[in-house]
């Protein structure tokens, strides 16, 4: 804005000119007004033409002159000085309003740009840049609280001083603002306590919290070399920026989390597809026998599996396994266990010997207490003999058609991965035509409904008996449906896996 002058005030197109001209004429015939350089503004005559002159002053500075008869001259000088004073006030007010317009525009632009900035460092840099336009700074920082309560640098601007956070100090402004959640000014403070290396010794600080309604994210710290002397209106401006930056940082953070989550979900989907491809896609086709399986993870990935393994001598390996826990670690462990078992049973005819070896491999790889319960059965389809090892798994159920009884194939050893060198015991059963064998994981019996009841063995037995005459596929389907109907809307608590083997003839 231009400096105030009598020449500007009395330009011919300005309202004051006409008024002054009329009053000058009314007061005395030949009153003349000159500017500070002696140029004629109102009236007729020359500055060097002689006559008495009185200075028109403002704040001790001569702004111009009035010449002419004394009585009118004094009145006109007073009028001009009053007009100049009013003009000065008007300018001061206008300056303030224009400054507030500048600030409003900066803040408005900042909020628009913050919305489009997806990265927290970019947001923090933008905030410091805008704060630097609003308030004089020498250096500035955005510091974030990390998960263990320490502050870490997100962005820095201005003089490259290293911030040193000294928690516990009474004079620690950052800690004070983090504790109160309120912005603060500290003028003329020793800065060597806050910054490492060669810096200024005294300075002024503004610290404003970056927060959302839910939480405190960190602070914006501004430093001005003395003698800036920050005042309340500086604090207000910085705080206004900080109030916009806090939510923007949170949104960016949540956006990143969402992107990361999306990426992880995609990876999980891919992992699921890989894992699902390891579950038999088809059941064995052996004369006189029928097989069925169900595999339903509680989460994206499963620690359960079942397997059919065709062995060289015409026997069929039957496996059901359940890795402790669920999710990614147990699913990886399940993949490893499947390979270990397949490798062992391919060259060891005895189920006990094969599981001994599989246990060695699994135990070597087991970390964080992971173990796996498992049943491995070696079925001779010609004779109906099944040699099996139950490594700490739920008892398999053998339904004997002739007697109508259910027989449990109980544990013959501990779960795999717990004790290397453990010697597993194997047992044998005979399946007659009409008999069927049910392998299942605890996801079946421990499934819970909305009143926290377990599905339990009794319901399992009931379903088996109710559908004993059905095919293997129907039996697996009925059992799966019974469990899902029992749990209702409640998501599965554990992976659910079922294998049914039926001797038809």
């Amino acid at each position: 804005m231009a400096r105030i002058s009598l020449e500007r005030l009395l330009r011919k197109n300005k309202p004051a000119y006409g008024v002054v001209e009329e009053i000058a004429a009314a007061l005395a015939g030949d009153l003349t007004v000159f500017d500070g350089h002696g140029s004629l503004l109102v009236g007729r005559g020359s500055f060097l033409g002689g006559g008495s002159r009185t200075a028109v002053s403002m704040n001790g500075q001569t702004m111009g002159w009035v010449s002419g008869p004394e009585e009118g001259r004094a009145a006109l000088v007073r009028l001009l000085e009053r007009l100049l004073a009013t003009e000065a006030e008007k300018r001061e007010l206008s300056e303030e309003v224009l400054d507030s317009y500048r600030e409003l525009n900066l803040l408005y632009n900042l909020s628009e740009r913050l919305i489009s900035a997806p990265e927290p460092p970019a947001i923090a840099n933008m905030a410091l840049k805008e704060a630097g336009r609003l308030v004089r700074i020498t250096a500035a920082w955005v510091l974030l609280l990390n998960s263990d309560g320490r502050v870490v640098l997100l962005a820095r601007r201005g003089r490259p001083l290293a911030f040193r956070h000294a928690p516990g100090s009474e004079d620690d402004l950052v800690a004070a603002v983090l504790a109160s959640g309120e912005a603060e000014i500290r003028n003329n403070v020793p800065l060597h306590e806050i910054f490492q290396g060669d810096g200024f010794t005294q300075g002024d600080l503004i610290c404003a919290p970056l927060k959302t309604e839910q939480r405190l994210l960190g602070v914006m710290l501004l430093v001005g070399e003395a003698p800036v002397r920050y005042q309340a209106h500086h604090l207000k401006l910085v705080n206004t920026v900080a109030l916009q930056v806090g939510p923007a940082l949170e949104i960016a953070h949540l956006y990143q989390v969402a992107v990361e989550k999306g990426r992880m979900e995609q990876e999980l989907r891919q992992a699921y597809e890989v894992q699902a491809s390891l579950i038999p896609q088809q059941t064995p086709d052996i004369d006189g026998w029928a097989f069925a399986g169900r595999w339903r993870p509680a989460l994206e990935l499963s620690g359960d599996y079942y397997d059919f393994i065709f062995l060289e001598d015409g026997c069929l390996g039957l496996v059901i396994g359940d890795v402790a826990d669920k999710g990614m670690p147990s699913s990886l462990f399940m993949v490893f266990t499947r390979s270990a078992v397949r490798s062992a049973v391919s060259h060891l005819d005895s189920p006990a010997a094969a599981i001994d070896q599989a246990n060695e491999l699994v135990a070597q790889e087991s970390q964080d207490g992971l173990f796996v319960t498992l049943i491995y059965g070696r079925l001779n389809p010609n004779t109906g003999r099944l040699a099996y090892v139950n490594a700490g798994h739920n008892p398999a159920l053998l339904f004997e058609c002739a007697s109508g009884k259910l027989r449990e194939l109980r544990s013959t050893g501990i779960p795999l991965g717990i004790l290397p060198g453990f010697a597993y015991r194997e047992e044998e059963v005979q399946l007659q035509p009409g008999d069927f064998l049910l392998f299942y994981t605890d996801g079946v019996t421990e499934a819970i409904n909305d009143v926290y009841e377990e599905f339990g063995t009794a319901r399992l037995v009931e379903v088996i008996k109710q559908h004993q005459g059905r095919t293997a596929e129907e039996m697996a389907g009925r059992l799966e449906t019974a469990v899902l109907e029992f749990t209702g809307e409640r998501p599965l608590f554990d992976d659910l896996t079922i294998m049914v083997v039926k001797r038809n003839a």
Partner: protein
Amino acid sequence: MPKRVLIVDDESHIRLLIEMLLEDFEDDGVELLMAANGQEGLDMVRDYRPDLVFLDVMMPVINGFDVCRTVKKEWGMHDVTIVLLTAKGQRQDFQHGDEVGADRYMTKPFNPDELLILVAEVLDL
């Protein structure tokens, strides 16, 4: 002929602020003209043919869009640059302004520095 800037706004403080801001240009011979409503604005455009007009959109009786339409479409004064002063966030004003021939837009509260740059650019100063 002096370069002329006309400020048409029914809010006196907006006229005053723009006047104060553009005072320096008066030293370069730019003439500042003020109008307090749309009718006055139209009269001054017709009588003084300003180079640049800051025209508020929201005015009683004759609003800024109608003034702009009259100047640009009816009178065909395409050499008069008209800057519409609109409210922030009123993006539909831009579309309406384009229809009536507005050249530029500024949103209120305007950015003083942008306004100065715009005047210097339009008046080639």
